[in-house]
C-alpha cells in the first residue's frame, strides 16, 4: 500500500477516478479532446514547419554545392571577376571555384537555376556540382575527362535528374536554354549525380555562360574551400578586407539564418496560434475539472470526515487532471502527425503561405518536439486542475457535506483586482518592442488579456445580469437570471471556455478581415495599368532591350512600362530585399507607388529611392535619410536618397523602388523582368497577347502570361486567402472546441442540479417551466459569453493588428470589423448554449421528482 491512513490508497484513487469517469464519460472525453486538439495543432504546425524548412535549405544547399563557404554577390548582377584571383590567393584558401549563377528556362517551360562553373575548380570545392558525361569509354583518355570537349564544350549542358524528368529528355538530346534574355541551343552532355533528388539544376562551362549570356567580366559567387586546419575566422577576416561593396561572405550559418528569417515570423505565428488552441484546451480542461469537483463536493467532504488529508484530495484531483491531459496529449500527437502529413501533401510545406514554392517536403518526425508538446498538453490539463483541486481540498467538510451548490456567498461582489491587474499587464506588454524580430511580448499580451478577460467573467456576469433582476420574463426567465446572478462562479466556469475560444477566434477574424480589406484597396492602387505581363520562373532578365523596343511598337498600346524586379542582399542576416526599377516619375511617385505620407523634395543631384514599409522595419533607414546600395556600375557613387515610404503587402522582406533611368545609370543593366500595358481606348485586348508574342523570341513567348489587372487582383486575393487557409482552419476548430465546451459545461451543470429540479417540481414548477428556465439560462450565459468574447476579441485583434503583425511581417493595416461574422457567431453561440442547456435539462428531468429530492440524504 502506497498511502497511509491519512492518504488514499492507490486502489482507492483508481477506483474513485474510474467511478467518476464511468458516471460521466462525456465530460472526461471532452476535456481530453480539448487538450488533444491543442497538442495536435501545435505539433502538426511544428512538424510541417520543420519539414518545410529542411526542404528549403536542401534546395539552397543544392545550388550552393558543398563548399565550405562562399563569397556571394549582393545582386544578381554579380561582382567584378578580378576579385576571384585575389580570393584564390588568400592564405588559408585551398581552392576557389568561380560561379556564374542565373535563372533560366529550358525549352520555354521548365524554370531552373543555371550555373556556369569551371570544372577544374569546382571539382575541388563543390564536387556535387560536377557533371558526369554520358559517353562510352572504350579507350582511355590521357587527360581528365573534365578537360575533354564534353565538359568544356560550348554547347554542352549537364542537367540534374529532376530537370531531365521535368523535360522528359535524356542525355544526347538538344534543348533550348533561355537566360539573361538570350536563347541558346545546348546538347545534354550528361547528368549531375551529386545533386539531391528533386532539385532542378543545370550546369554549363563558366566561359560559355559569361560569353553567350552576356555576363562577361562578372561573377555571382566564388565557392571556397579552407586549407585543412586553417584558422577559419582569420581567413574570413582576411577575405572580408578584400571584398568590394557588391559582394559578401556567406556560409552555411548565414545561409540558414537567411532561410530561417525568410519565414520565421510566419512559422512562429502559426506556432503561437496553435499554442493558443492549447490554451483554450487548458481552459476547457479547467471547466471540466471544476465542474467535476463541484459535483463531488459532498463526496470529498465525506472522505475528509473519514480522515483523508487535504493533500491527498489535492493529489487525487491532480492525478485525474494528469490522466486526462496525458491521454489527450497522446491522442494529440498521433492526430498531429496525421494532420501534418495531410497538410504537407495538400497545402505544401508553407501551408499555402507562399514561402517555399515548388517543393513537396518529406515529413520529418521530431522526437524532441513530440515530447515538449506532450508536456505542454499535460501542463495545460494540470494547471486547469490546480484551482479545482485546491477548492476541493479547502472546502469545510461540514458545510460541503450538506450543500452541493455554489459555495460562494451571492451577496459578496466578485473579485476584480486580479483580473484588472492581468488586463493592465496585457496592455503594457502590447507596447513593448519585438525580441529578435519576433513579437513575443505581443503574444504574452494576448495571453494576459485572455486570462484577465476570463478572470473578469464573474464580475462581468454580475454586472450584465444585475439589470435583469428587476425585469420579469415570467417564471422561467426570472428563475434563470436569479440563478445565474446568485451563482457567479459557476457561471464564470461555464463562461471561461466559451470566452477564451470566442475571443481568440474573433481576434483572428478581425485581423484577417482588416488585412484582406487593406490588401484589396492596396491592389487597386498598385495595379493601375490594364494588362500585366509576367514571366514564369522568376526570370528577372526576361526582356532584352531589343525585345522591349519591338513590344512597344505593337498597335493598340497607350503605353508599356517595363520593370526590373531583382533581389538585393543588403545585410548578411536578412533575406534579400527586392530592388524594383520602374518608370517612376520623381516629381509624382504616387502615380505608381501607394505612398504613406508624402514624398520629400529631392536634393539636387541625389538619386531618389522609395522604401516599402517592411524595409523601414528591417533596416535603419527613414524618409530623408541617405543610404548606400550595394551596386557597382558605371558611375562610382551608389548613395541614394530615401524620398518616401510606400505600402507594399507583396514583399515582406522589403522593397527599394527607384526610377528606371537611375537604375540603368547605376548598373548598366537594361534587361527587364515584367511589364505593364495600358491600352488605347477601344483597343482590342483579346488580340493583344498574340500580337505581343509575335514580336518576342519563341522561347520567351511561351513563358509570358498576360493577366488583366482585374484577374491579377482576384488572383492576389486568392493567394491571400490560401495563405490564410490554415488560419481559417484553426479558427473553425476554435469555434468547434468552444461550442463543444459550451455543451459539456451545460450538460454537466444541469446534471449536477437534479436535486434543485426535484425541489422546484415539488413546489409546483412545471417541467416545461424548468426546461424554459434552463434554456433561458443558456441563452443568457451565451449572450454574456458573446458580449465578453467579442469585446475581448476586438481588444486582442488590436494587439494582432498593431503589435504582432507589424513586428513579424512589417506591415500595417486599418482595422475593419466583420459585423456579419459577429452576428453569426453571436447567434450560433446563444443558440448552441440554449440548445445544449435544453437538451441537458430534458435528460435531467426524465427521472421522477421524488427520487431526485431523495438524493438529498
Amino acid at each position, binding site marked *: 500500500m502506497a498511502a497511509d491512513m491519512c492518504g488514499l490508497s492507490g486502489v482507492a484513487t483508481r477506483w474513485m477516478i474510474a467511478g467518476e469517469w464511468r458516471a460521466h464519460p462525456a465530460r472526461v472525453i471532452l476535456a481530453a479532446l480539448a487538450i488533444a486538439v491543442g497538442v495536435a495543432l501545435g505539433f502538426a504546425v511544428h512538424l510541417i514547419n520543420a519539414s518545410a524548412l529542411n526542404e528549403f535549405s536542401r534546395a539552397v544547399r543544392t545550388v550552393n554545392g558543398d563548399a565550405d563557404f562562399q563569397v556571394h554577390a549582393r545582386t544578381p548582377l554579380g561582382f567584378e571577376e578580378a576579385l576571384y584571383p585575389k580570393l584564390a590567393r588568400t592564405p588559408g584558401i585551398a581552392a576557389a571555384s568561380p560561379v556564374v549563377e542565373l535563372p533560366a528556362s529550358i525549352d520555354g517551360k521548365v524554370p531552373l537555376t543555371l550555373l556556369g562553373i*569551371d570544372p577544374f575548380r569546382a571539382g575541388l570545392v563543390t564536387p556535387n556540382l560536377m557533371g558526369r558525361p554520358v559517353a562510352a569509354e572504350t*579507350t582511355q*583518355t590521357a*587527360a581528365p575527362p573534365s*578537360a575533354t570537349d564534353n565538359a568544356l564544350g560550348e554547347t554542352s549542358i549537364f542537367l540534374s535528374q529532376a530537370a531531365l524528368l521535368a523535360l522528359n529528355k535524356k542525355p544526347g538530346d538538344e534543348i533550348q536554354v533561355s537566360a539573361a534574355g538570350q536563347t541558346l*541551343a545546348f546538347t545534354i552532355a550528361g547528368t549531375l549525380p551529386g545533386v539531391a533528388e528533386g532539385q532542378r539544376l543545370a550546369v554549363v*562551362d563558366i566561359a560559355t555562360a559569361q560569353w553567350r549570356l552576356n555576363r*562577361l567580366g562578372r561573377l555571382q559567387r566564388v565557392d571556397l574551400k579552407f586549407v585543412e586546419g586553417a584558422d577559419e575566422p582569420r581567413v574570413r577576416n582576411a577575405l572580408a578586407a578584400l571584398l568590394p561593396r557588391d559582394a559578401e561572405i556567406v556560409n552555411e550559418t548565414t545561409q540558414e539564418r537567411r532561410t530561417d528569417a525568410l519565414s520565421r515570423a510566419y512559422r512562429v505565428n502559426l506556432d503561437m496560434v496553435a499554442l493558443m488552441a492549447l490554451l483554450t484546451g487548458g481552459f476547457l480542461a479547467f471547466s471540466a475539472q471544476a465542474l467535476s469537483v463541484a459535483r463531488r463536493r459532498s463526496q470529498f467532504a465525506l472522505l475528509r470526515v473519514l480522515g483523508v488529508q487535504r493533500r491527498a484530495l489535492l493529489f487525487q484531483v491532480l492525478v485525474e487532471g494528469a490522466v486526462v491531459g496525458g491521454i489527450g496529449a497522446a491522442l494529440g500527437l498521433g492526430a498531429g502527425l496525421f494532420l501534418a502529413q495531410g497538410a504537407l501533401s495538400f497545402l505544401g510545406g508553407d501551408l499555402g503561405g507562399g514561402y517555399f514554392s515548388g517543393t513537396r517536403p518529406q515529413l520529418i518526425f521530431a522526437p524532441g518536439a513530440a515530447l515538449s508538446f506532450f508536456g505542454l498538453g499535460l501542463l495545460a490539463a494540470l494547471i486547469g486542475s490546480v484551482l479545482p483541486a485546491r477548492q476541493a481540498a479547502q472546502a469545510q467538510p461540514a458545510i460541503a457535506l450538506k450543500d452541493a451548490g455554489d459555495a460562494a456567498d451571492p451577496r459578496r461582489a466578485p473579485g476584480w483586482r486580479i483580473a484588472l491587474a492581468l488586463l493592465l499587464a496585457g496592455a503594457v506588454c502590447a507596447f513593448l518592442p519585438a525580441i529578435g524580430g519576433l513579437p513575443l511580448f505581443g503574444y504574452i499580451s494576448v495571453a494576459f488579456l485572455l486570462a484577465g478577460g476570463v478572470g473578469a467573467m464573474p464580475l462581468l456576469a454580475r454586472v450584465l445580469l444585475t439589470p435583469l433582476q428587476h425585469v420579469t420574463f415570467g417564471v422561467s426567465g426570472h428563475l434563470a437570471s436569479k440563478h445565474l446572478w446568485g451563482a457567479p462562479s459557476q457561471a464564470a466556469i461555464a463562461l471561461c471556455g466559451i470566452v477564451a475560444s470566442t475571443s481568440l477566434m474573433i481576434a483572428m477574424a478581425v485581423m484577417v478581415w482588416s488585412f484582406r480589406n487593406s490588401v484589396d484597396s492596396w491592389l487597386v492602387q498598385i495595379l493601375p495599368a490594364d494588362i500585366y505581363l509576367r514571366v514564369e520562373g522568376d526570370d528577372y532578365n526576361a526582356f532584352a532591350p531589343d525585345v522591349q523596343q519591338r513590344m512597344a511598337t505593337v498597335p493598340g498600346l497607350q503605353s508599356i512600362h517595363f520593370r526590373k524586379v531583382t533581389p538585393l542582399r543588403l545585410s548578411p542576416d536578412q533575406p534579400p530585399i527586392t530592388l524594383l526599377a520602374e518608370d517612376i516619375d520623381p516629381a509624382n511617385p504616387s502615380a505608381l507607388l501607394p505612398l504613406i505620407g508624402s514624398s520629400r523634395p529631392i536634393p539636387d543631384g541625389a538619386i531618389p529611392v522609395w522604401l516599402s514599409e517592411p524595409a523601414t522595419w528591417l533596416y535603419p533607414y527613414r524618409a530623408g535619410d541617405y543610404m548606400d546600395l550595394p551596386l557597382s556600375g558605371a558611375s562610382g557613387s551608389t548613395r541614394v536618397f530615401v524620398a518616401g515610404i510606400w505600402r507594399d503587402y507583396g514583399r515582406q522582406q522589403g522593397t527599394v523602388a527607384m526610377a528606371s533611368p537611375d537604375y540603368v545609370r547605376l548598373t548598366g543593366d537594361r534587361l527587364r523582368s515584367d511589364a505593364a500595358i495600358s491600352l488605347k481606348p477601344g483597343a482590342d485586348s483579346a488580340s493583344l497577347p498574340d500580337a505581343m508574342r509575335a514580336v518576342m523570341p519563341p522561347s520567351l513567348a511561351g513563358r509570358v502570361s498576360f493577366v488583366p489587372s482585374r484577374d491579377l487582383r482576384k488572383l492576389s486575393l486568392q493567394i491571400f486567402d490560401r495563405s490564410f487557409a490554415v488560419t481559417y482552419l484553426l479558427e473553425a476548430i476554435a469555434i468547434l472546441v468552444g461550442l463543444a465546451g459550451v455543451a459539456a459545461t451545460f450538460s454537466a451543470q444541469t446534471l449536477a442540479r437534479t436535486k434543485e429540479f426535484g425541489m422546484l417540481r415539488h413546489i409546483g414548477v412545471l417541467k416545461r417551466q424548468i426546461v424554459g428556465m434552463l434554456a433561458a439560462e443558456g441563452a443568457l450565459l451565451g449572450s454574456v459569453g458573446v458580449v465578453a468574447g467579442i469585446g475581448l476579441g476586438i481588444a486582442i485583434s488590436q494587439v494582432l493588428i498593431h503589435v504582432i503583425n507589424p513586428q513579424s511581417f512589417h506591415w500595417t493595416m486599418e482595422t475593419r470589423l466583420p459585423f456579419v461574422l459577429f452576428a453569426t457567431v453571436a447567434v450560433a453561440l446563444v443558440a448552441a448554449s440554449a440548445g445544449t442547456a435544453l437538451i441537458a435539462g430534458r435528460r435531467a428531468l426524465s427521472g421522477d421528482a421524488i427520487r431526485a429530492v431523495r438524493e438529498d440524504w
Partner: protein
Amino acid sequence: MRALKWALALILLATIGHAADTPVLPNYAEVRPGVTLSFPRDHGAHPEFRTEWWYITGWLDTEDGRSVGFQVTFFRTRTSTDQRNDSAFAPKQILFAHAALSDPQTGHLLHDQRIAREGFGLAQASMADMDVTLNDWTLKRDANGRMTTHAGGKDFALDLGFTPTQPVMLEGEEGYSRKGPLPAQASHYYSLPHLLVSGTVTRNGRKAAVKGTAWLDREWSSAYLAPGAVGWDWAGFNFDDGGALMAFRIRDAQGQALWAGGSYRDAKGALTHLAPGDVAFAPVRRWHSPRTGTDYPVEQNLSVRLGPATKEWRIAPLFDDQELDSRAGGGPVYWEGAARVHGGRGYLELTGYFKPLKM
C-alpha cells in the same frame, strides 16, 4: 616524348557546333624543319602550338644513402575553344601537371596532379623564359639558367633546384623531331640531360635534403601521332661518364614499332641522331599489375646502332610497381619509373598497355 602528350589532342577536338553560327577555331602553328631554336625564348611557352610540356625526371640520393626516383611535368594545351569567346575564363589554354615520387621502400608511386585553365595569374606559362605557374605548383628558370620547382600535395612535396652541367641537346634534326611517317607528325624537341639536383623532399611533414641528377625534356607540336598507334616506350639515361641517351618507339595494336628514334651524346659531346632503324626495344621481363591487371615490360633490352657498332643496354627498373593510375583525376594509366642501365641512371615510360591511348 611523354605520356600525356598525344592524348592532349583530345581536348583539341573541334566541338560540333549546334548553334547556327560556326565556331571560329584556332589556327595551330605547324612544326617545320629548319627552325632554329633560340634561348631563353624557347624555354618559354609556345601557345600557338597545340601541345607542349616541361618534363623533368630523375634520381635523388637521400642523406641516408638511399635512391628514389621523381617526376615533375607541366603540360600546356591549346584547345579548340571558339576564338570569339571573350570571357577571361575561355579555356583557350589549359595547363596541367603531374608529380610522382618513386621510393622502393614505399613500394608504389606517390603522385599528385593539378589542372586549370590559363588565366587570372593563377595558371600561366611565360613566353619569354621558363616560368610556369599552376595554382600552387611552379617551375621557373633564373637568369643564371638554374631552374626551381615546387610540386606536390598531401602525400609528398618536392622543392627542387636544377643546375645545368651540359649544353642543350637538340633532338632530331636540330630540334625537329619526327614522330611518324609523315613530315608533319613531328615536334620541336630539346633536352637538358645531367641536371644537378639539390633541394628537399617533404613526406609526413618532414623535410629531407636530397641531391641527384635529372633530365629535362621540352617538346611542342601541333600534329603528332600516326594513325594506328596505341602507345609508346620511351627511355632517357644519364651515363656516369657524362654521356646521354634518349630513345623511343611508337607501337601499334600488335606491339610492333610504327616509328622509332632517339639520340646519343657521348662524354665528349659528339651527338648521334638515331633513325627509326637504329633503335630496337626487346622486352625481357613483364610485371603484372595486381590493381589494373596490366602487364608492363618493365625490363627490356635496348639496342642502339651507333655508326658501325650496335650498343645494347639492359634496362632494369628501380622497383617493379611504378604504375601511375591517374584515373581518379580523369587521367590515364601508365608506367613511369626510375630505371638503371649499365653505367647509367634514368627513366623508362610505358604507355598504352592498359588500354589504347585515345587520340
